């Protein structure tokens, strides 16, 4: 067969042909299941724009995004960091951004990586299915942007900024980790908003403007909304601080509550991504590797573009050693891709060791089936606990360290040997459990009827406390949103 392209320059016609060829293999042979794709070509400046708004196509305005942009731009212009080749958004249709400077080979790689790899993962992984709403997210962001802009007009930039600052400081504490949040559909969000505005307008009276300063008009009675859990009884302990403040803070006005809600919903939307970094990137990298090789096997890409692809692929999955100057933590691409390629190996050419460790998949043959099951039903922690093989631990030369704060040295507790495999694996899995890697902060009570003190505690995991300086800054933000004193306490976890 003649190759689809020989030049390194791309054009839309070639993009389309390449997309169709990739789609045929991805859906026909690998049987991937994806949202419809929408592929957009953007310039490097637009890529920087997208970076600085949490990789979303639209976002409300806040100075922290401007700071991020300035930082990224400085790094990029100085040549310290290259731009990502792509950004992909968990939405339906699934939007992928291609950088215009990519060569045709890179565009093909990116289409395979984002439009099929990530897309399949978004659509099938249980966390994304349960916790995010791919159809509604863009509408919701548009609503958030408009709402916050309107608040700025009405209440002044400073006030809006103050609330957003505080809400951002609590973003990590703005997710439900165990209980599933209600999922507002697009229509319901719009309908709700309309009702809310209508109600506000009805309840507004010109008279209130004539009140002397310091006297507040009577609060607008909340609109009747049977689906809204109305702040009746507050439930404590509550891990979702933003949710708690939104519902129960005595100091906030309705528009401020709505803003907390926006930040909280965003945080919740990103939560699955934080729990599946390794798997998500691993899945996309594995898919693009498989697809690009399939294209080459069919003669659809030339040898030179295969080499260009391999060059880029190997630098993406490069893992420097811990004592290397380039070490920046475990590379999720390397670990994820390594594990998935390893699963394929175990399924097709297992060693006796693999048969011992993975009797249910060793030699099974249909590796795609095993992988798809993995992509759908695991997150990083459970995936590592289940599928990290001794061979891969040896390849990465992993070793576990024990760190006690008041000792001057780390102790090597286990290494990649017979006695150590299980412990290294368990330790690594725990490292990827967002639930235990994040600080466990709970609101334990509030004296709503007396002095209105709010009680917050950090349940320490194995005695590790919070950093004092940042803790105090964040507590000040809680205090601002709560409006009254906040009592913070470090407590050992009872477990």
């Amino acid at each position, binding site marked *: 067969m003649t190759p689809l392209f020989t030049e390194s320059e791309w054009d839309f016609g070639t993009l389309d042909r390449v997309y169709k060829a990739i789609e045929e293999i991805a859906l026909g042979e690998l049987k991937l299941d994806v949202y419809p794709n*929408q592929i957009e070509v953007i310039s490097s400046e637009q890529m920087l724009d997208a970076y600085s708004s949490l990789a979303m196509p639209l976002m409300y305005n806040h100075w922290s995004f401007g700071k991020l942009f300035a930082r990224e731009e400085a790094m990029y212009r100085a040549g310290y960091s290259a731009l990502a080749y792509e950004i992909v958004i968990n939405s339906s249709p699934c939007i992928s951004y291609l950088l215009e400077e990519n060569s045709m080979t890179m565009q093909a790689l990116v289409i395979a990586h984002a439009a099929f790899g990530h897309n399949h993962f978004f659509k099938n992984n249980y966390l994304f299915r349960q916790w995010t709403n791919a159809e509604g997210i863009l509408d919701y962001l548009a609503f958030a942007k408009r709402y916050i802009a309107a608040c700025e007009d009405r209440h002044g930039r400073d006030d809006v900024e103050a609330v957003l600052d505080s809400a951002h400081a609590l973003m990590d504490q703005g997710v439900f980790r165990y209980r599933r949040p209600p999922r507002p559909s697009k229509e319901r969000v719009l309908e709700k908003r309309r009702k809310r505005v209508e109600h506000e307008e009805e309840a507004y009276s010109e008279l209130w403007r004539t009140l002397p300063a310091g006297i507040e008009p009577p609060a607008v009675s909340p609109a009747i909304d049977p689906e809204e859990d109305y702040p009746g009884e507050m439930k404590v302990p509550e891990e979702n601080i933003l949710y708690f403040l939104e519902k129960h803070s005595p100091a906030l006005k309705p528009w401020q509550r709505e803003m907390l809600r926006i930040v909280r919903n965003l945080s919740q939307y990103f939560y699955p991504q934080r729990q599946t970094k390794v798997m998500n990137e691993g899945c996309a990298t594995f898919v693009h590797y498989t697809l690009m090789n399939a294209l080459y096997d069919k003669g659809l890409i030339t040898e030179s573009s295969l080499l260009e692809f391999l060059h880029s692929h190997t630098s993406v999955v490069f893992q420097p050693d811990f004592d290397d100057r380039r070490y920046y933590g475990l590379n999720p691409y390397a670990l994820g891709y390594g594990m998935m390629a390893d699963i394929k190996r175990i399924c097709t050419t297992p060693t006796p060791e693999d048969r011992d460790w993975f009797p249910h998949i060793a030699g099974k043959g249909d590796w795609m089936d095993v992988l798809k099951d993995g992509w759908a039903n695991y997150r990083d922690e459970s995936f590592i606990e289940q599928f990290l093989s001794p061979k891969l631990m040896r390849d990465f030369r992993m070793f576990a360290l024990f760190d006690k*704060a008041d000792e001057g040295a780390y102790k090597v507790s286990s290494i990649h040997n017979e006695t150590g495999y299980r412990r290294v694996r368990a330790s690594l899995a725990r490292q990827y459990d967002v639930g235990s890697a994040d600080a466990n902060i709970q609101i334990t009570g509030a004296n709503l009827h007396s002095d209105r003190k709010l009680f917050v505690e950090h349940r320490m995991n194995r005695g590790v406390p919070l950093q004092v300086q940042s803790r105090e800054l964040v507590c000040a933000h809680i205090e601002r949103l709560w409006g009254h004193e906040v009592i913070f306490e470090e407590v050992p976890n009872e477990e």
Partner: protein
Amino acid sequence: MTQFIDRRLNPKGKSLANRQRFLRRARTQIREAVQKSLKDSAVADIGKNRKIKISSRGTREPRFRLDPKAGGERDFVLPGNKEFSPGDEIKKPRSGEDGGRGKQAGDSGDGEDDFEFTMTQDEILDIFFEDLELPNLVRTTLKETPSRTWRRSGITTAGSPTQINLIRTMRHAFGRRIALKRPSIANLNLLVEQLDALEREEPQTDEIRARIVTLREDIAKANAKRKWIGFIDPIDVRYNAFTEQPIPTSQAVMFCLMDVSGSMGEREKDLAKRFYMLLHLFLKRRYERVDIVFIRHTHDAQEVDEQEFFYSRQSGGTIVSTALDKMLEIQKERYATADWNIYAAQASDGYTQSGDARHCVEMLNADIMPLCQYYAYIEILDEREMEVFASEDSGAELWRAYRTVADLWPNFATKRISKPADIFPVFRELFKKTEVTS
């Protein structure tokens, strides 16, 4: 199903609103940084993009962070074991964590100290001007890029209807009509009259009828010809052409005179530097080419480079007139008044050897002021002295002497300053002039 969308042409600067919010938020830090950066940069470099490093104080984004160094215990896994067996110990690095290199990415809120980014020329100037408390009108005139104007540059065959050159167009049309023998209205009317006359004649002979037929044919032909050959044809149309040209500007030289004896400290020199920067900005806008000559003096004057001018120190007495001598000497040698506009800016703390002030005044009145477009003198005082010399009339010898010059020459400005905001009034006259001329 799949769509490819080309977004490259979408409007740029989507994050501009965020950038403005960020600059506003970090205002204090940015101001400090800009001022420091201006202090370290050359006078002529103001008004360029530059890198600014600010501390992250004020733009911190705190989050709850775990601090394993402060207490408790944990396990973690690293790749790349080469020599360790269980039970080995690895010394903790003094700062940072995780055995290897210290830096942990993305710990915003505590890890970052300094923050570097590029500010555009406009953003820098805004802050520079804010300190100097420049009036808004002046700010905008200073920020403008060198002005250009549209000048006539002949005639073209293409252009917009508003620029049609009627005379040329009609002339071309006329020539073409003559060359192609387009019958004029007058000729046509003549034929029609003849026809009328013949038709009215009695009796109608054969001869007359024949003439009528030919006349009718002639009229039809003439009418047809007038239709084919337009009164004005597109090829006749001519337009006035304009091209954009820079407004012719000349060159200027700016003499910076400064007393560098021991009494001029850091603060004084910094104020003086801003004074020179502002003058330079102004001159740069008005003249294509601006030379700067730095002359420093104690009891003796020298021409030096900028680095030495601002940063090296000399001991000795103070004789101001030596600097004026030097300036005259350089001016005669290199900057003929026919080719150069001459500006001078002098900064001093007001002390000079007794008797010298009178000498200075003589030189200024006789030799220097006739050459200069503008001469600005600032006396840098500290706040305490400023109170003592509240009145314009009191002051040291040099000040009083210069006041007499100022009375004689409208283009001589004097001012005492003790803070950046005092600088601009020195140039007030200068800016007033440009508002009229530009």
